[in-house]
């Protein structure tokens, strides 16, 4: 699997196929049983802890599904957090940077709110502002659209697309929201059970002759992935019940 610089790469697949695990592997949060991950030419899992933290600081940003905002800090301090931790900028410069980052996600006016006071969509936008605070080369989005109302979803789609173009970042979007993700991505990997099933540009994928990919992209209830969870035949199960009910 290759993720190209400066492009939006989507990783799609059903729930529980290891999409988030893949992001955690890229970020070096978990170790692979086999195989290796290279970021910016470095094998993530061969780095020492300080080198790994250095790599994360310089190149990676991540947007978690829940936003992962620090609940005891305000919106302003959340965005300030990486700047205060990793730079020696004077507070005045940090203030300007935060306002610009929050402006980019449209939440400059919400800077004094606490995370508990934000809606899910706003929390993710704040998390996005925080993720871009240090201007990372690459940003990873973990299910950015899940559980969002259509308006917030539209806002997030636009933000991810615009930021990628404006800042020249590499974006990795993990998602199972087919249409939204396809609309902004340059290249898509479809994975299932930990394996890449198909990859290509969004248009190529739509013409895929794999029945599985068609079922996934079209959101069909039955197909290669059966509607029913593996079980004995209904008749057998019912008879079983009758047998055991009889004295």
């Amino acid at each position: 699997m290759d993720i190209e610089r400066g492009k939006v790469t989507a990783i799609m697949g059903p729930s529980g196929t290891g999409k988030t695990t893949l992001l955690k592997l890229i970020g070096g949060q978990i170790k692979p049983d086999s195989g290796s991950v290279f970021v910016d030419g470095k094998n993530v899992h061969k780095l020492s802890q300080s080198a790994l933290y250095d790599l994360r600081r310089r190149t990676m940003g991540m947007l978690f599904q829940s936003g992962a905002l620090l609940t005891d800090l305000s919106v302003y301090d959340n965005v300030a957090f990486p700047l205060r931790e990793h730079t020696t900028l004077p507070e005045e410069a940090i203030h300007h940077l935060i306002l610009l980052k929050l402006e980019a996600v449209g939440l400059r006016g919400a800077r004094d709110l606490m995370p508990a006071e934000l809606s899910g969509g706003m929390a993710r936008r704040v998390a996005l502002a925080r993720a871009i605070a240090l201007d990372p080369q690459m940003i990873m989005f973990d299910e950015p659209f899940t559980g969002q109302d259509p308006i917030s979803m539209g806002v997030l789609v636009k933000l991810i697309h615009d930021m990628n173009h404006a800042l020249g970042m590499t974006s990795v979007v993990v998602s199972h929201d087919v249409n939204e993700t396809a609309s902004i991505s340059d290249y898509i990997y479809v994975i299932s059970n930990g394996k890449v099933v198909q990859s290509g540009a969004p248009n190529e994928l739509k013409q895929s002759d794999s029945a599985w990919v068609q079922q996934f992209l079209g959101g069909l209830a039955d197909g290669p992935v059966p509607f029913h969870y593996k079980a004995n035949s209904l008749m057998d199960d019912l008879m079983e019940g009758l047998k055991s009910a009889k004295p």
Partner: protein
Amino acid sequence: MIGDKLQQIGSRTLNRFNRIGRGSLFLWQTIISLPYMIERPGLLIRQLYYVGVQTLLIILVAGLFVGMVLALQSYIVLVDFGAEDSISQMVSLSILRELGPVFTGLLFAGRAGSALTAEIGLMKSTEQLSGMEMMAVNPMKYIIGPRFLAGVIAVPMLTSIFMAISILGGFFVATEMLGIYEGVFWSQMQNNVDFYTDLMNGMIKSLVFGFVVVWIAVFEGYDCIPTSEGLGQATTRTVVHGSLAVLGLDFILTALMFNV
């Protein structure tokens, strides 16, 4: 049947050892992260407020009543022997050697330990710890270290406050309710309490209790299964294991310190 049982016992034992190993590694990582506190003393002071100052009220109230009850009970026994003047000796030795450190350890596990576990566990389940890692901020340094150190510092301080207020409670009951002379109370105490064997041993106990309880608390939070059920279990474990550890260690330390 027996095979299943054996297998169960085996896997539980393995799990237990696994946990002990993880806990020890965790402690080591916590300790090597502590020098970060020199760069960021604010983090430590904030946690000292949360685990120390906010536990103060329960310590004060509990300490006062323990001292008062102890004075009453001692009087009932001692008066039969005409030895009611020794009440201050009884109260102060019980408090300094045993009740001060043990009560403070137990109350700390219940009040601050459970809160620490719940807080860290919730941070884990809301991905705040992962998020911090991805922002290249080590949660061991930023979250765990300050809480651990604050607990280790706070418990001996809380213990000494508990001791002081308990003795004052005993003093109040003895002089106001039981008619012991103030001078007798204090001079008996002065003659019979040794700074090293009594007070210092009590403080060493409290240092050990604080260390163990706060270690259990932060580890349970950090290691919990990030679901509501797992978090609940972790919080319960902190209180149960923390309290049992205090009582068990108290026995060992007492046996070692007082040459029984």
